[in-house]
């Protein structure tokens, strides 16, 4: 099968800043620290004052359509199946103008909502929709969504609370078929569309046989590693499990332009020093997930890495601080798939840690060293 061509992927380094914003589902514009002027397309230097310090600053996702064209003939075969394609210039209140993909309901001289989305090649593009329009429900813009709706999904480990919550949310999102990986080998079938799959990833030969059996049908893998403390789980088991599943299913995901969700932890990037073994496992899985992402993106697939803060898991009631329920995590993952997000920080704690890690990683190391030992369990 000849894979369908992808949209143009080439971007300058400064333009990749936009991709980083879109990967998190935010809307931001490159802005001059000296004079505040917004820049678009991304620049190396401020066009208004020649200031050299440009940063990405969240901006109001609003603008006015000032011109519109429907492209009937494209130079890139990656767009052929989408023609005719509505595009237009949208004037943002900052004074920059963005060439956008338009929802068909966007007409000249009307106010529209702006979104940054990752295209099939994984690069950011601006998209405009009328207000009160669900981008996901517009067929002509459906290629920006990675929704679980209608897809065949494998939950690698549905024996624990995170895997179960992901499965429930994905069934609710309208997945066609959901395989529930069962480390204990159980095969009892649950709700409609759910199929138990014996999958003990510590046993490579048997697991590989099961994975090969479903490979031709799988569209989306939700990798749910154990979150037990390091004493109960050897880090190398998690890494071997990832390698096993990704090697078995990546060729099928490439061919089907499928996806992968790694449900990890904010510990993957925050690296809490008092939970070093857990952090090491999550960080290693993060690295492996990025490797898989590069591979799948080149084929038009996608990989989302979810990094929640502490979860409200059985036995964590006494733990201090806010915790994210697994139900909310499952729904956040489905919503992020709808929006084509790559990097998910689904709760205030993970967002706070993310901001601290970006601002001052060394400070965060010392801050986290002061946290209780069991904070991340």
């Amino acid at each position, binding site marked *: 099968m000849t894979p369908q061509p992808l949209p143009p992927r080439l971007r300058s380094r400064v333009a990749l800043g936009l991709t980083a914003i879109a990967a998190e589902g935010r809307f931001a514009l490159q802005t001059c620290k000296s004079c505040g002027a917004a820049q678009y397309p991304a620049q190396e230097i401020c066009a208004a004052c020649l200031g050299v310090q440009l940063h990405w600053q969240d901006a109001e996702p609003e603008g006015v359509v000032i011109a519109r064209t429907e492209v009937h003939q494209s*130079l890139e075969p990656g767009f052929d199946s989408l023609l005719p394609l509505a595009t237009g210039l949208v004037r943002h209140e900052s004074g920059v103008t963005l060439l956008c993909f338009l929802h068909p309901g966007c007409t000249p001289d009307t106010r529209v909502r702006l979104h940054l989305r990752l295209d099939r090649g994984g690069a950011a593009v601006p998209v405009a929709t009328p207000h009160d329009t669900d981008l996901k429900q517009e067929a002509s813009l459906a290629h920006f969504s990675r929704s679980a709706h209608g897809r065949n999904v494998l939950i690698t480990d549905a024996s624990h609370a995170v895997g179960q919550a992901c499965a429930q949310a994905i069934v609710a999102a309208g997945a066609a078929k959901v395989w529930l990986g069962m480390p204990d080998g159980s095969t009892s079938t649950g709700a409609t569309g759910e199929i138990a799959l014996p999958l003990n990833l510590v046993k490579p030969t048997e697991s590989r046989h099961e994975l090969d059996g479903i490979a031709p049908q799988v569209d989306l893998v939700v990798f749910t590693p154990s979150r037990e403390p390091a004493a109960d789980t050897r880090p190398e088991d998690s890494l071997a499990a990832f390698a096993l599943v990704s090697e078995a299913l990546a060729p099928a995901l490439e061919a089907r332009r499928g996806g992968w969700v790694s449900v990890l932890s904010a510990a993957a990037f925050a690296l809490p020093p008092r939970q070093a073994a857990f952090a090491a496992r999550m960080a290693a899985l993060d690295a492996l997930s990025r490797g898989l992402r590069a591979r799948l993106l080149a084929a038009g697939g996608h990989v989302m890495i979810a990094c929640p803060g502490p979860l409200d898991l059985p036995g964590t009631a006494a733990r201090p601080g806010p915790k994210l329920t697994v139900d909310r995590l499952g729904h956040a993952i489905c919503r992020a798939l709808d929006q084509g997000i790559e990097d998910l920080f689904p709760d205030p704690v993970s967002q706070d840690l993310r901001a601290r890690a970006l601002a001052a990683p060394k400070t965060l190391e010392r801050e986290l060293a002061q946290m209780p030992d069991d904070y991340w369990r």
Partner: protein
Amino acid sequence: MSVAYDDVVLATPVTVPYEKFSIRGAQHFLGRALRGLLEVSGLDRSAVDGLCVSSFSLVPDSGIGLARALGLELSWLDTIPLGGASGIVSIRRAARAVQCGDARFVACMAGDTNQPGGFRENTARFSQATQDAVHPIGAGGPTQGFALITDAYMRRTSCRAEDFGTLCIAQRDNAAANPLALLRTPLSMDAYLASRPISTPLRMLDCVLPCAGAEAFLVMRRADALALKLPHCKLLAASERHNAFADDPIQSRGGWERDANALFAQAGRDTADIDLVQTYDDYPVMSFIQLENLGFCPTGAAAKFIAAHDLRASGDFPVNTGGGQLSVGQAGAAGGFLGINETIRQLTGQATGTQVENARTGLVSGFGMIAYDRGLCSGAAILEAA
């Protein structure tokens, strides 16, 4: 006002006939253009001491690589990477070089090859802004950008598709008599309106045909042209303007609006003195904007203006008298030289198509380099029969 061009003249218009595609490279077309200049002028290659070259497909070479390839030793060399504005800009550069004595005979040349798929590659990396923020949004090429400019123009002015059709049809009538034009079959309004959409509101027949070919002319002093017995025309005035009106939300005018008064003042002529106009017609809307910005009609009134005039070479307001790029073809950077050579030919009585009667004074404009949402370079020149 900038210093007068004294007795700088343009002579020996050479066209390397256009081909839709070619297996040859840009060097081939530019080399044949130089050979044409030498044949027509009778000059020895060693007499050409200045070279001004424009090409998209000459990469990785610039002018110096070409000079080596063509065996030219030069005292003056320039490479103008300004697309459709390169022709006008090369006139300005070469004229000053000749006027100041830096060179005696400057060969101004533009040429490109065209290979299947070549247009896509050129478009994908036309500029960093294009690569980052235009090509990924549907890859409609320059037509998509000009469709947006056309859409805004039509809503601002109430101009209709038929008004653009009128210009395209007149240019095709002009092309019918020009053997250098790739498209010479007469065009009806029905056929124009029925041509398939490329990027709305633009149709197939609003778009130039990319092709391979070259254009070239020589810039020299009047005394040299007379000594060589070369038909020539005088350079009365020329202007260039880059990145004008950068704050306009969408392109509704070009740098001509800034420079038109100075251009006519330098020439000592008025719009009424112009016998023929060659606009840079990559898309009809740009011709409309040029007619407005250069003062032939008020802003937004181009449709009314062209309806009130006969634009054919035999008409009362001849425009793109050889057919323009829309009918002749666009050989890459040579597109900005096409109108210059047409003007030189008309003013020296050497038209390859229909000769405009009593053509004394001609205006030619250039426009180039759409980067992100607008064309950045505009220029114009007024030439007069010797």
